[in-house]
């Protein structure tokens, strides 16, 4: 999220991106790619498809960067809007049950937009992440950022599959408790 990027940096990066600077795209992808993936996963519930949508989204961002209007929306909002539109299109195209599923997932993804104040609170997030055991954190990182399946994590780390699954569950549950996300009000996406 943006705890590592000031608004002025984001503006400068979006301008460089508009001019075709791939380094700027790389920095913005590192800052927002994980968050965009989380957003898309909430709609598609499928890692492989969600990764494709994130890739398509950032290719769109590359092509359309000249049309981004900072006075109208935060850069993160613009990117997430592109991602959501693509994810919903794919949901409708793929899923015969789309109408019902879509409404449930949209209710989840919009009426209860994850609290980005929590996300933007860098020190708090850092403290919560530090409270996870090294194994819990690294398992979740392998699953989330490296995109490894539970079986691949088990093979790579020499850990039984059941243990990998338990660590993943415990990591998410513990993070949820530490962040106290259920007690906080919801907010829309902000820079």
């Amino acid at each position, binding site marked *: 999220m943006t705890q590592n990027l000031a608004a002025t940096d984001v503006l400068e990066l979006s301008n460089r991106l508009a001019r075709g600077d791939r380094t700027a795209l790389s920095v913005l992808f590192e800052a927002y790619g994980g968050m965009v993936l989380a957003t898309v996963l*909430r709609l598609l519930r499928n890692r492989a498809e969600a*990764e494709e949508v994130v890739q398509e989204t950032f290719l769109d961002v590359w092509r359309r960067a000249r049309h981004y209007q900072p006075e109208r929306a935060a850069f993160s909002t613009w990117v997430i809007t592109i991602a959501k539109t693509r994810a919903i299109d794919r949901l409708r195209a793929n899923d015969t049950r789309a109408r019902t599923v879509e409404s449930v997932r949209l209710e989840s993804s919009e009426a209860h937009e994850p609290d980005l104040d929590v996300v933007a609170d860098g020190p708090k997030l850092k403290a919560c992440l530090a409270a996870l055991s090294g194994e819990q954190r690294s398992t979740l990182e392998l699953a989330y950022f490296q995109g490894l399946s539970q079986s691949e994590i088990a093979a790579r780390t020499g850990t039984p599959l059941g243990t990998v699954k338990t660590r993943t569950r415990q990591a998410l549950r513990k993070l949820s408790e530490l962040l106290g996300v259920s007690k906080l009000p919801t907010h829309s996406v902000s820079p």
Partner: protein
Amino acid sequence: MPRSRFGAKGGDKKVTHGMKEHEVAQHFEEYVLGLLAPERVAEVDAHLQTCAACRKDVRELEQAMMAFSAQPNSVEKVRARLDASLSGGARFDHLIDDAAELFDLKPDEVRALFASIDDPGVYSEGPADGVKIIPVTPGPRAKDSFSAIVRVDAGATFPMHEHFGEERVLVLEGGYRSSGAEGEFWRGDLDVRQAGTSHSFTALDDLPCICASVAWPPKE
């Protein structure tokens, strides 16, 4: 946590929609991470449609995932694919149609031209230091023009020149500032200069400026 309602030891066998609730709940983490098989996803979806407590549980997990996802880190598989999609001339793919129209060439011919754009060996020296040119043989409609790819180093200036006929410049990468009052032109912009005008332009500081240019002779 709502999950405890399902009995951690598997004692609660309440059936909902043909599913044992505790079985559904044990898949929530994988569901949230997108790691569940599609048929299982459908089962969880069906359950969530009727169970507010489980929806709340899933939302809390989603928020934890969202928080985790917000670390400055890279989604590696996507980054690798993104890098491959934009490597070399492929980074100009979205401008192929505009350039094909400008040069009156077929899209594949423009793609081949763009594929060589990073090869210093294809450039000729231009009219000033830091300015290089690839002459382009255009299609029939532009056969009387001088067509070229022009590359101006970051911060370098293409010297003052007059347009005897109309000139159209499509910015492919970077940007430039014209000596006139027109401001800056960035990637994707089309700069149309009328016959009889003159200007110099300077590439912006961050990137070399690469343009597709078609300059027409004066109309008789």
